């Protein structure tokens, strides 16, 4: 193009391929940016702290939970917030419900992304130590006498220790120590009964027991004051019934 003066030309020459490449790069970058924003928002809202599993008020009667409530009642009192433990629990329950409701609203658009792409977030890990942990024990009754055949972490009672010692069984045992997992405790007892009916032909009954002890404080350990384990009500199974059924 011929210009009438020494001014620079009004247009510029650019290869089409380079322009197309730049445009395609921009499209790719824009799409990637959109995906990254979507992914980060989706996993962040799902990961936000929320009291999942805490809305069953019956579990709040657990001694570990009550100890926490007492500790926080006292700490808040030192900060000038005067509440009784019951008032604190009532307030927390209301707040927990609102948090869960808000969280459920935020995550609802991303449900399929979590399900299809494995991006579910669940990070309630050791959020509070269980001060009254339970240890699972299995006893069989032979000739009228109870005998322990399995006890968690006991090298002298190792029946089914391999099966019941896997990490996933530990998760189950941790859960059944809470009252809202009573149904799972019954099912474990059924399974144990099926196995005991075969492995202990002389046994008439088997029981699954949760033995609890409050974890000793460091001072109690140093004084040698280790608390005795107290058994919850055992879950008992009549093995004759299991032998008849199988």
């Amino acid at each position, binding site marked *: *193009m011929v210009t009438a003066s020494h001014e620079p030309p009004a247009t510029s*020459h650019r*290869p*089409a*391929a380079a*322009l197309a490449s*730049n*445009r395609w*790069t*921009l499209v*790719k*970058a*824009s799409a*990637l*940016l959109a995906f*990254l924003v979507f*992914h*980060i928002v989706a*996993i*962040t809202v799902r*990961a936000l*702290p929320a009291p999942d599993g805490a809305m069953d008020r019956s579990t709040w009667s657990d001694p570990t939970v009550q100890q*926490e409530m007492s500790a926080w009642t006292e*700490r808040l009192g030192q900060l000038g917030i005067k509440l009784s433990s019951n008032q604190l629990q009532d307030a927390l329950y209301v707040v927990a419900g609102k948090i869960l409701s808000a969280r459920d609203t935020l995550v609802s658009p991303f449900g399929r992304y979590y399900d299809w*792409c*494995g*991006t*579910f*977030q669940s*990070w*309630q*890990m*050791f*959020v*509070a*130590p*269980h001060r009254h*942990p339970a*240890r699972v024990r299995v006893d069989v009754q032979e000739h009228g006498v109870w005998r322990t055949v399995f006890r968690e*972490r006991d090298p002298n009672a190792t029946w089914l220790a*391999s*099966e019941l*010692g*896997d*990490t*996933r*069984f*530990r*998760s*189950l045992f941790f859960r059944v120590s809470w009252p809202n997992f009573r149904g799972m405790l019954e*099912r*474990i007892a059924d*399974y144990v009964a099926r196995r005991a009916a075969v492995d202990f032909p002389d046994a008439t009954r088997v029981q699954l027991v949760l033995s609890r002890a409050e*974890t*000793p*404080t*460091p001072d*109690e*350990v*140093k004084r040698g004051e280790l608390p005795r384990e107290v058994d919850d009500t055992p879950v008992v199974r009549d093995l004759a019934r299991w032998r008849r059924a199988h």
Partner: protein
Amino acid sequence: MSAPAIDVPVEAAPVSVPRWAERLLVREPGTPLALFRIGVGLSLLLSLGSVWLHGDVGILWLDPSHGGLSPTSPGWLFHLLGGADLTRIHLVLGATMACGACLVLGLGNRLPAVIALVGYPALVGLQVDAGGSYDSLMGNALWLLVLADSTATLSLDARLRKGSFITGARVPAWPRWLVLYQLVLMYLCTGLQKVSDTWVPGGSLSAIYFIMQQPTWQRGDMHWLAHIFPLTQAATLSVWLFEVGSPLLLLAILLERGQGRVARFLRFIPYRRAWAAFGLSLHLGIWLALEVGCFPILAMSFYAALWAPHDVERARG
């Protein structure tokens, strides 16, 4: 002969790709993602292999009518396969573990991650009460491996494609950023949920002491910790601060390349290495003291994303 030039008015043509777009599409050597892939593969083999070795496949994942523990919740995969009986469960287990091996070896690019992302949740979903956070972390790790090109190096794929297990092939960097973000997000959100009086500063700081005493998780008797209780208190405070303060890592990575006083301070500390050292020690300590499945190894796999290859080169240089 070059393509003919086309006259385009200057004001109508984009001058160049914007900087943000260039940064998003940056490529880097694939070593961090390869290391992440290997760690995830090993973790998957450990997680599922443990169930198999302990003889728990038929106990945990079958319903009582077939000799299992409790009613199971078969997902769409088992419905598609015609049910969750022992044969089909072993089929899915075998396929998923084979994918874990392929991830370790770096064979099949993204395909093993895709298959494992279907198989793993299908298996652990049969008995959700017998799982833990490591299952959530595994799902996220597998999805990140679907997004990433993680077999560019340290892989059989590289050997087959380029004739060498180790290559300098460049891959998109953005999946590595997502790996790093997931790690920080996990720490932050678990820290924010540690609202027990035993965790939050100002209280007894006895959380780690009492957690170590729980018979469900401990590997052996831990009463001896009572004699070093102040150390466990320090550990409790450190862990809480580490988790709740984890977003500072992202800030540090962003700032440490700058020129100002903050950047010089972050390079002097050096913040990233200290953070990684603490985190890796935390997970090693958990692994030694507690039985929590594949979680420690899986979490440590994410640490591969902390350094870009050029950070390593710069540190060496």
